[in-house]
């Protein structure tokens, strides 16, 4: 009976779905025009002629309207090239949904998540299909700093062998500070090139009666994560990357004096009412997406906002990169001599249910065109480490510059909280940061997170 009901509903889904499929055939950029690598699409089309009519399901983290539309503009080309019917979905709680779908035995063909730690968990459960050594080789050969990107998609399977399970796609640079060039010009401020200069600048802003930073760490079920990025960025600027790696894997405890010291450095900013717009009390309750809006008010509520490249899609409509807002690289300490560390993140494409269409899709994402379409999308925050993709197609100079930061990094490290085990990186670390901002001491918070880590198994 229930079965009958489901059959009826899916019959209807086919009818309605088909209608939707026919109506959205138009592509974002006409094939053959512009600086795109159309030849890579042609080659891909020629190599995949026997898949028409198959269905491919995708679960992605891109749930806000802009990202979802830009992502769709990419896979439309895949549909066009192969005749495969793509059904891509997402939700604000996409990690939880991915876990539920896998536990329920109904995973999507392609699963894309920005948390390597979570994917490692799935791989260990045997929920993911290895992509094979040739994919590993391809990433090493074609991505800037290829070996480190390939490593992000390598997990231990159910039997313990480490294999390539994921293809990194859509990178983000996190070590960015956003500001308004007009406000800087008006006050005579200059873009700092060292951490010492940045600290001098924030004191100067306070002395001038302004507020240096806008910080908001509210993010629904993930409240606290923007603060974890601060800690990670400061870790990379205070200690060598090896220490960062040990911290992320708990080889050094979370309450190591070095980590506590870094949390306190963040505290010197976030726990000083003069340093943060709205004062410290506003930090934990302000949505991270709303927090940069203080840059655009008159008079400005703040002059600086540290956030990843994707934040541009939260800026007020009509603001133009390079005019209304700009960014600089969160600089290193001159005194520490640690090079130019860059904190970043990215999404990992995996196969959760194998099919020829899924294999074809991974191959599609290896073509330069699959990167260029999103790079060129207006208002996108898409960066690519794919060396074959043409940087000319980036929709703005700002993106091109961010892409350059990605390619020039002397040290690149992935977002630490995404590498830590779920209950820490997506739990105790977030909660700890909220507690810290609301008054707990760095030592208390670090002890509390380490205790949670000790309780893991």
């Amino acid at each position, binding site marked *: 009976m229930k079965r009958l009901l489901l059959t009826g509903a899916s019959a209807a889904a086919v009818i309605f779905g088909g209608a939707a499929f026919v109506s959205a055939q138009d592509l974002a950029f006409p094939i053959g025009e512009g600086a795109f690598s159309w030849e890579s699409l042609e080659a891909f089309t020629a190599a995949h002629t026997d898949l028409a009519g198959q269905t491919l399901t995708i679960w992605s983290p891109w749930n806000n309207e802009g990202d979802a539309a830009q992502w769709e503009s990419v896979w439309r080309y895949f549909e066009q090239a192969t005749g495969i019917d793509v059904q891509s979905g997402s939700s604000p709680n996409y990690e939880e949904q991915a876990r539920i779908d896998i536990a329920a035995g109904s995973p999507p063909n392609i699963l894309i998540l920005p948390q390597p730690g979570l994917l490692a968990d799935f791989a260990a459960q045997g929920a993911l299909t290895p992509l094979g050594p040739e994919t590993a080789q391809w990433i090493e050969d074609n991505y800037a700093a290829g070996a480190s990107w390939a490593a992000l998609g390598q997990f231990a399977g159910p039997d313990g062998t480490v294999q390539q399970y994921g293809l990194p796609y859509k990178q983000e640079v996190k070590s960015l500070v956003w500001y308004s060039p007009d406000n800087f010009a008006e006050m005579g401020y200059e873009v700092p090139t060292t951490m010492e200069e940045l600290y001098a600048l924030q004191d100067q802003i306070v002395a001038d009666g302004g507020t240096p930073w806008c910080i908001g760490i509210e993010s629904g079920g993930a409240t*606290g994560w923007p603060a974890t990025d601060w800690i990670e960025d400061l870790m990379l600027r205070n200690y060598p990357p090896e220490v960062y790696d040990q911290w992320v894997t708990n080889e050094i405890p979370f309450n190591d004096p070095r980590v506590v010291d870094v949390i306190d450095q963040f505290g010197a900013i976030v726990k000083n009412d003069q340093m943060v717009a709205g004062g410290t009390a506003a930090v934990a*309750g302000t949505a991270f997406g709303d927090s940069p809006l203080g840059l655009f008010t008159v008079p400005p509520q703040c002059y600086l906002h540290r956030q990843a490249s994707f934040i541009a899609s939260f800026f007020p409509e009509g603001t133009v990169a390079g005019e209304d807002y700009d960014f600089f690289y969160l600089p290193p300490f001159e005194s520490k001599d640690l090079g130019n560390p860059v904190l970043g993140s990215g999404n990992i494409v995996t196969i959760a249910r194998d099919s020829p269409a899924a294999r074809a899709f991974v191959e599609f994402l290896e073509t330069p065109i699959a990167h260029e379409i999103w790079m060129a999308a207006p208002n996108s925050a898409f960066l690519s480490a794919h060396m074959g993709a043409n940087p000319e197609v980036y929709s703005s100079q700002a993106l091109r510059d961010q892409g350059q930061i990605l390619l020039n990094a002397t040290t690149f490290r992935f977002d630490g909280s995404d590498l830590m085990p779920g209950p820490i990186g997506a739990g105790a670390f977030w909660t700890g940061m909220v507690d810290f901002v609301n008054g707990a001491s760095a030592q208390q918070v670090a002890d509390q997170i380490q205790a949670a880590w000790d309780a893991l198994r």
Partner: protein
Amino acid sequence: MLQQGLYAALTIVLGVGVFLAYFWGANWILDRALASNARMPHALAQRRDNLRSRIRPWLFLAPALIFLLVYLVYPVFETFRLSLYDRLGQDFVGPDNYTWAIHDATFWQAALNNLGWLVIVPALSTIFGLLIAVLADRVWWGGLGKTLVFTPMAISFVGAAVIWRFVYAYRGPDMPQIGILNAFVTWLGYPPQPWMQLTYVNSLLLMVILIWIQTGFAMVILSAALRGIPGETIEAARIDGASEVQIFFTIMIPQIAGTILVVWTTITIIVLKVFDIVYAMTNGENDTQVLANLMYRWTFISGDTGRGSAIAIVLMLAVLPVMIWNIRRFRAAEGTH
């Protein structure tokens, strides 16, 4: 949007249609298969009649029983099984998950918060519901007032949480306050407060949301019970010179005590399961954690079905006595025990 609307409409039509077809069809088949008529030997017809009337209730109960088994009974046993296994549900670990819970500070904090909800929300909802039910009948706009109080019942918990986010919203002291509560506080000349970050106060403010929703429920049920009080008893009390307050406490309350208890326990069960409001408002941060949200967090965010299930079982054991008692009361009221 249109597509979703069509799906919903289709599901309703199919769902209702299939069930109607089942009940009608099963009934029809039963009547045909075990038909009896005057031409049959009397004993056979009698036997068939008896058999039919014994099978019929089961035919009608079957769908509900199957759904109960699949969606309620089976999950209980599966949850219990998982609570004895490791995080992926693969290796047997015995009572490890329960010993972990006993030693986990967050678990106790959540349990204590649940206890706070348990004491405060059912009591205030019932008291407010009763007061409104009694007093609304005495003013000409009582009907309108009751409608307004009842309206929140129609709002989902998450919807209510979204509404109350605006009530409790906080901006820095030098910015315009968009939250009603802070607008009021600043109007009185006090500095705005980040309500959701003030320990204890935040939990109380979350409880206010549930009270806001449940008062309507309590009011409607109690209002009906009050109507059922025989007018003579009140009249007799009045003639004997009892004051309104005396009538309320000594005449009305004892006569609807059974209904008050049912309302109270029903809200208690809702409160023990509270999840949506906490999830949508604070996600358990700033010491507002409750057991249901903690269970969700361990199961779906941390991916540890063992610990999540153990919390679920503890929660179920806590609800069980209230529920059994509630069902007993209900049966006593119906006179079918």
